[in-house]
């Protein structure tokens, strides 16, 4: 059965989740990426959307503005989460966000922030932007539009948005860090074998 989280997300809903679990999200999902993080943390500007108990999406979508001024979500996939690593621990602490969705791993600082504030990071499969767009029911607001289409905070109402693969859980486990160790362990022996066969300089 699908496990569906609904915003506002409670601590209890996240407590039992472990890295590698697959969940879906219903409720509100706000896009928030590089410059929005910088404005909040470095420039001390208040985030124009309250995301306490909510979910943010590291994403810069393609949005079509209709003639009546409303918006249509065309294509919205995740962007590389690691770019926000520098800011995310403090971002979680200041905003009270419970779920961060993006692509690829995040580092130790974000894992510490997730542990301290009982939040999670999850991966939506990168590049699957049309699947994601079809789970957006409506764009309810757009803030900081001066940042241009990719960086605007788009407030989306979503239904069963996913699959979302938990990559950092509330215990601070980080699936990408665990995987990296495995990859590095395997690498040495493979390269040793390759070295023997590429001695083209003689």
């Amino acid at each position: 059965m699908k496990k569906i989280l609904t915003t506002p997300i409670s601590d209890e809903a996240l407590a039992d989740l472990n890295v590698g679990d697959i969940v879906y999200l219903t409720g509100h999902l706000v896009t928030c990426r590089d410059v929005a993080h910088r404005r909040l943390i470095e420039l001390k500007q208040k985030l124009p959307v309250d995301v306490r108990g909510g979910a943010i999406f590291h994403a810069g979508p393609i949005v079509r503005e209709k003639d009546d001024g409303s918006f249509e979500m065309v294509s919205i996939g995740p962007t590389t989460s690691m770019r926000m690593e520098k800011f995310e621990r403090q971002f979680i602490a200041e905003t009270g966000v419970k779920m961060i969705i993006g692509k690829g791993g995040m580092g130790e600082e974000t894992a510490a922030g997730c542990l301290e504030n009982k939040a999670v990071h999850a991966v939506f499969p990168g590049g699957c932007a049309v699947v994601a767009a079809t789970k957006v029911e409506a764009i309810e607001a757009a803030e900081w539009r001066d940042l241009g289409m990719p960086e605007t905070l788009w407030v989306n109402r979503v239904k069963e948005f996913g699959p979302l693969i938990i990559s950092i859980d509330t215990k601070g486990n980080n699936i990408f860090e665990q995987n990296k160790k495995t990859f590095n362990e395997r690498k040495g022996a493979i390269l040793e074998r390759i070295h023997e066969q590429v001695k083209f300089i003689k």
Partner: protein
Amino acid sequence: MSSENSVEYMSDVMTKFTSYIGKRLPKDVKQKQADLRKKEKNPMAIEIYDTMAENQEAADKLDRPSCQDTGVIQYFLTVGAKFPLIGELEDILRTATLEATKKGPLRHNAVETFDEKNTGTNTGSKIPWLDWDIVPNDDTATIEVYMAGGGCTLPGHAKVLMPGQGYEGVADFVFDVITSRGINACPPLLVGVGVSTSVETAARLSKKAILRPVDTSNPNANAALMEQLLEEGLNEVGIGPQGLTGDNTVMGVNIESSARHPSTIGVAVSTGCWAHRRGTIKFNSDLSYEIISHEDVTL
């Protein structure tokens, strides 16, 4: 056709083709992904491959860009010196980018550096980026359109090795880039490696390498062997789709090379994500054209 009409015609074809390749993957990439999905045993990786396939079907059906990051638009040109519109190509491709941005629609991905303003048009200083190869005594134009997304551009890396490090050092470099930065770049990746004399020559060749079809080999036997060894080796690392582990890591490894200074080995890596949006179109001098990268295209 008058020269004004032919400029307009070619601009229109390139607008449609640029927009088209953001929505549908080239045939070699599609085929490779189907093969990797078939070989995969890990349930999470299978779920991701299936979501990828579902996404491409939805993009085709709904006629939308399959990935929201439609990249910085780059055109790699191989143009005969006698192609009649050689002098107009820069304007034609700028128009194509502007129009495809509206028609696609494409995401606005041109930020003027130092002014730090998004132009909102996908055009800006030297963008769309044009890379030229001029062919003497030829009157055709082959244009590769590439959408350089942010995620798969981030791993890009180049350096100059000392000859003592040899091709062993090249292999180490490729592995380091892919296992550290490649994980977040939407694997399974197409890995382009440039082996050359300096950073900029290696970097350009590494990008040309990912424009080569997935299943092609370098004509030099040693280079082809190295492609194969790197591909098998990286697959053995098992990075999997989205870096979440799996039976494979890459769609392929393509190497392009040049002669080098005896004291240097320039090496560079460029990566293409699984949503590798490139397209190849060839124009004849009368502007009749053939689309090489995709099948059954109606523009």
